[in-house]
């Protein structure tokens, strides 16, 4: 009997790891569809961002109450995973709480800590559900999240609560069984939370307790493996990608736009023809971004790292005044399009127009509020500006007023139609 459960466990674990790896490689391939860009300079600054922004969740603390709750969920989730290690070893080896005899009294302390974290995770997730569904914070009821994204967020929170409750149930039954000296159940010190609840199960038979303990144990670990595979299809992927995203975050001042060396060269040759190469280059360069392949791989990593929290859009002047633009949607649409291209369904569509409209792109004031707010170092503005470059330079698509502004700058050296000779007229007035 024991061997059967070990085999089932082995198959479940192997299958989960296989599926997750396949999906992870698929996402990696999708991200690398983006154009190359070197983001390995200044490693010290990058590690600092990783520590402060990802591990320390610095930006979350712009709202301390939410930051603390989120930190419980994050720390709880990460640290309780140490317990998963024991569960996996037990599952494969057919043992029970294999670390207990090894760690002695320390074991009870560790599990006690895990239990407190588990309770905090469950409570925090419940509060988050209330914020989303009962208090209805503006950024959560936004139309951006209509359909799957809104359900996704709720599924994640509910799953986390269920997993934590299963973990605590399993421990409670375990403590009750230990108290009865049941065979196979190693005696540990009292667990800090479930130790207090074990007496409530006193009326149950040994076999019922074992059924509860085993049932919770299996549901918990199978739930964890299922959740592992839900993760890469969901906004919850941010728990992994927030880390590389912080490391590869833009280190330039926010006001600095990406330079286009090919155009810089072009202008230099126009101004100083003697510098121009005698043989014209074979390749016709593409300017700006029309589809995800024109964006950088960091833009696509951004899209996969986005957890759709909407802090960007809540701060965006365009979104706040009812424009079509929402930076969160820019990221969600980029991810959707990357998925579509990754599935081999690229044909006949592009990120521009089929996903992101000109109206959205035009509404941006480049104010950097979205970049400032993002807790996981996403830069929606970079995508918007690359797409604007495509519109203007590849399609000559600009509002008439912008075309006038361009021609004024070109001819009068100012965006308005004034004579350059009057530039110093302010002195005389």
């Amino acid at each position: 009997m024991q061997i059967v459960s070990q085999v089932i466990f082995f198959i479940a674990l192997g299958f989960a790891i296989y599926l997750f790896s396949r999906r992870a490689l698929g996402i990696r391939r999708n991200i690398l569809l983006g154009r190359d860009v070197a983001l390995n300079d200044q490693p010290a600054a990058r590690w600092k961002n990783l520590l402060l922004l990802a591990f320390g969740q610095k930006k979350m603390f712009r709202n301390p109450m939410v930051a603390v709750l989120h930190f419980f969920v994050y720390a709880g989730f990460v640290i309780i995973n140490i317990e998963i290690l024991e569960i996996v070893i037990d599952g494969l080896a057919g043992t029970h709480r294999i670390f207990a005899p090894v760690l002695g009294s320390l074991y009870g302390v560790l599990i006690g800590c895990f239990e407190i974290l588990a309770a905090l995770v469950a409570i925090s997730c419940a509060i988050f559900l209330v914020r989303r569904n009962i208090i209805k914070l503006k950024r959560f009821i936004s139309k951006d999240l209509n359909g799957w994204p809104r359900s996704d967020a709720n599924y994640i929170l509910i799953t986390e609560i269920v997993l934590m409750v299963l973990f605590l149930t399993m421990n409670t039954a375990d403590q009750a069984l230990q108290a009865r000296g049941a065979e196979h159940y190693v005696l540990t010190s009292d667990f800090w939370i479930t130790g207090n609840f074990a007496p409530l199960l006193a009326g149950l038979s040994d076999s019922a307790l074992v059924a509860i303990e085993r049932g919770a144990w299996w549901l918990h670990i199978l739930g964890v493996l299922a959740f592992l595979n839900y993760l890469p299809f969901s906004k919850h992927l941010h728990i992994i990608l927030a880390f590389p995203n912080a490391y590869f975050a833009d280190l330039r001042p926010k006001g600095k736009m990406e330079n286009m060396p090919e155009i810089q060269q072009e202008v230099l040759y126009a101004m100083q023809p003697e510098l121009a190469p005698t043989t014209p280059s074979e390749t016709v360069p593409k300017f700006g971004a029309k589809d995800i392949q024109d964006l950088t791989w960091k833009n696509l990593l951004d899209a996969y790292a986005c957890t759709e929290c909407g802090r960007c859009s809540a701060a965006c002047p365009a979104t706040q005044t009812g424009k079509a633009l929402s930076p969160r949607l820019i990221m969600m649409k980029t991810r959707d399009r990357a998925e579509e291209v990754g599935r081999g369904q690229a044909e006949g569509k592009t990120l521009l127009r089929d996903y992101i409209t000109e109206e959205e792109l035009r509404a941006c004031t480049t104010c950097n509020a979205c970049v400032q707010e993002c807790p996981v170092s996403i830069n929606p503005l970079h995508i918007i500006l690359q797409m604007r470059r495509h519109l203007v330079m590849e399609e000559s698509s600009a509002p008439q007023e912008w075309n006038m502004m361009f021609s004024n700058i070109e001819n009068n050296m100012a965006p308005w139609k004034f004579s350059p000779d009057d530039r110093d007229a302010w002195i005389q007035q």
Partner: protein
Amino acid sequence: MQIKTMAEYFANGETPEVLFWVGCAGSFDQRAQKITRAFAEILTKTGIQFAILGKEEACTGDPARRAGNEFLFQMMAYNNIQVLNNYAVKTIVTACPHCFNTFKNEYPQLGGTYEVIHHATYLQQLIDGGRIKMKEGGTFKGKKITYHDSCYLGRANGIYEAPRQVLETLDAELVEMKRCKSKGLCCGAGGAQMFKEEEKGSTRINFERGHEAVSTGASVIASNCPFCMTMLTDGVKEAGKEEEVKVMDIAEMIVQNMQ
């Protein structure tokens, strides 16, 4: 006002302390010209040797670049850098945060490296260095002032404190809007929006910001950018408060109250 150009300094074999980059708005926009004159007056009064480029000045290319026209931006940058480097310009002061940002962050990669100072920071330095001395009991004493962070000085370049320190010398009561500093709401002009009609929405961005500024109860909205100036002035007008609430550049506020 007697203001010398870079060419005049150069002809006399002299070098000014700073180049005052006026910018297009500061040169041509009637309201912004007042800011330019105020700042030039401060420089003159404090005895700073400064020059302007005059007719040799041209748009930095910021609105073109942000609208997506990189070719035009690169053309403007090339020409401006030629002019600035020919005069061996070391230090640029400007009252426009967009020009400031372009010089500071974008020209160095294209061969134009200068010390670039926005006038908010420059005024703070002049005050700290004792070159600007304020009158006792100036015109803003005890009045409520709110300060609007421009995006290109604030978030883009992290300058939040210098303009506030300048305003503190006015003995006024500085009240903050809810959305201030790194959470500041844009006036709606950046990213070349100044030069086109806004997309359709529930309201205009400058109306939203105008209302927010007016609701602080301040009698003066202090700004540091000629585009914010235009936007906020319209926003205040829309809120029906143009009689009670003035939008002023920090340079205008200082020049009124310096000795």
